């Protein structure tokens, strides 16, 4: 850990700087810390304070651990953690939680960090990292001094990325908002020194929808990192227009593969040239799917191993563009293919569209028809005949069969707890 004093701002607990956090963690749990060594312990956290204290304890005790908000630990999840050998410690009550199956720690690896995936495509999986695979900036020196807004849910891969930046790089401060008001927290953080944010495109769209642009423009934003879902040209353009002096990058990462691609040229997708190194490189295309190998991959994957990401990509000119997840990425419209990610990206190119989601609707005769949910920008909310205008706009950009037949206009961007949509 860096020796420089760490800076921390908890909106919910303004009295809690780094020293107070560490002192409190030691006072609360220092006595039982030795009991956790030689076991696998999973921390059920009430809030962001608990989560950061769990990290500090894990570092102090070189623990084999994981953490998540207590509300995510349903009885099913608790049972699957127990069957992996975990005992679950409730930070709020300071007691071990019982589960149907009691954890038996057969295989304990000090320094291992286990995390639950979001579970959007089924039951949450347990992915294992360590502080080495999580510290993706480990080799870099002189990272500019920044105060980061942390919107992510504790215990997720993206959250650990922020925590590692804070732990292992000098001059990095964190601003931890009240998780019940992330957007309000973000806006107020801008007046309190936050000059960097890492977030999903959905979160930034939510901010753009609910906040006056003038208010955002006043912020001295230096670094913006997008990831967690497909990053489209429209959101890159909007943010670079909003904060023209900032460094805007997008990252392709997953809990299993780790951080694999960082793009900083302001364009969606990544350069096709990155595919050309073949077996000597880190990225490959096979049957339209992206294969990745990364030294930051989880412990179940060796750094030299190619991982099939399940993400569909397409080479368009000098660029590789993401087209969604294999299996759910394609709509069959009467035998013709339509890709929701491509249609969404085209829609987001309309100046009055802030967010879009395209899905299939089962339909007689042709199998499926595309449908769209859209959130218009505040200035576009009064767009007359939006359905017709957006259909005409799309017809110039995607094949006719890919133009949605049913439209729903929403007032807000629907975001999941992992800030994706």
């Amino acid at each position, binding site marked *: 850990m860096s020796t420089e004093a760490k800076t921390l701002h908890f909106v919910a607990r303004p009295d809690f700087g780094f020293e107070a956090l560490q002192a409190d963690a030691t006072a609360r749990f220092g006595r039982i810390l030795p009991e956790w060594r030689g076991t696998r312990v999973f921390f059920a956290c009430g809030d962001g304070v608990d989560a950061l204290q769990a990290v500090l304890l894990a570092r102090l005790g070189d623990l084999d651990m994981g953490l998540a908000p207590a509300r995510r630990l349903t009885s099913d999840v608790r049972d699957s953690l127990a069957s992996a050998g975990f005992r679950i410690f409730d930070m709020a009550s300071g007691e071990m939680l019982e589960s149907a199956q009691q954890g038996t720690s057969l295989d304990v690896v000090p320094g291992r960090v286990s995390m639950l995936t979001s579970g959007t495509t089924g039951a949450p999986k347990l992915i294992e990292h360590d502080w080495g695979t999580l510290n993706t900036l480990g080799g870099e020196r002189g990272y500019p001094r920044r105060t980061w807004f942390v919107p992510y849910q504790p215990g997720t891969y993206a959250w650990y990325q922020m925590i590692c930046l804070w732990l292992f790089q000098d001059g990095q401060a964190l601003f931890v908002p009240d998780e019940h008001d992330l957007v309000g927290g973000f806006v107020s953080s801008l007046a309190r020194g936050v000059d960097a944010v890492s977030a999903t495109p959905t979160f930034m769209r939510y901010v753009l929808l609910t906040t006056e642009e003038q208010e955002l423009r006043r912020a001295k934003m230096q670094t913006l990192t997008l990831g967690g879902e497909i990053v489209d040209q429209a959101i890159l353009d909007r943010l670079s227009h909003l904060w023209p002096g900032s460094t805007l990058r997008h990252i392709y990462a997953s809990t299993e593969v780790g951080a694999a691609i960082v793009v900083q040229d302001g364009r969606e997708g990544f350069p096709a040239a990155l595919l050309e190194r073949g077996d000597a490189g880190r990225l490959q295309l096979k049957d339209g799917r992206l294969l990745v190998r990364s030294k930051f991959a989880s412990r179940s994957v060796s750094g030299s191993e190619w991982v099939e990401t399940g993400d569909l990509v397409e080479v368009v000119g000098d660029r590789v563009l993401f087209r969604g997840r294999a299996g759910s990425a394609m709509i069959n419209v*009467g035998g013709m293919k339509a890709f929701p990610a491509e249609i969404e990206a085209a829609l987001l190119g309309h100046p009055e569209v802030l967010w879009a989601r395209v899905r299939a*609707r089962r339909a*007689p005769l042709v199998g499926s028809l595309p449908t769209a949910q859209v959130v218009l920008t505040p200035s576009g909310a009064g767009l007359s005949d939006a359905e017709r205008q957006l259909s005409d706009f799309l017809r110039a950009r995607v094949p*006719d069969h890919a133009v949605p*037949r*049913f439209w729903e206009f929403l007032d807000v961007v629907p975001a999941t707890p992992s800030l994706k949509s």
Partner: protein
Amino acid sequence: MSRIEILALINKVLAANGRSETRDEDVAIRDAGFRSLDFSEVALRIEDKLDRELHFEAGSMRRIATIKDVIDFFENAISADVD
């Protein structure tokens, strides 16, 4: 649903997809630019309106040549389901 309402739905779908509305029921579906995707969309809009699924007979679908045939087809499908 009446024939007028079905024709109105057909015209709504044609217009939304950048084609001209038609008042002449005898016009060939090809000339009206009414395609299988449009047919499918009209079927779903009728289902939405009636709040029930329609059942189609593939044989009678193959005999469709004009806009009148389309209206006849849906009129039959709606009444068949009611029986």
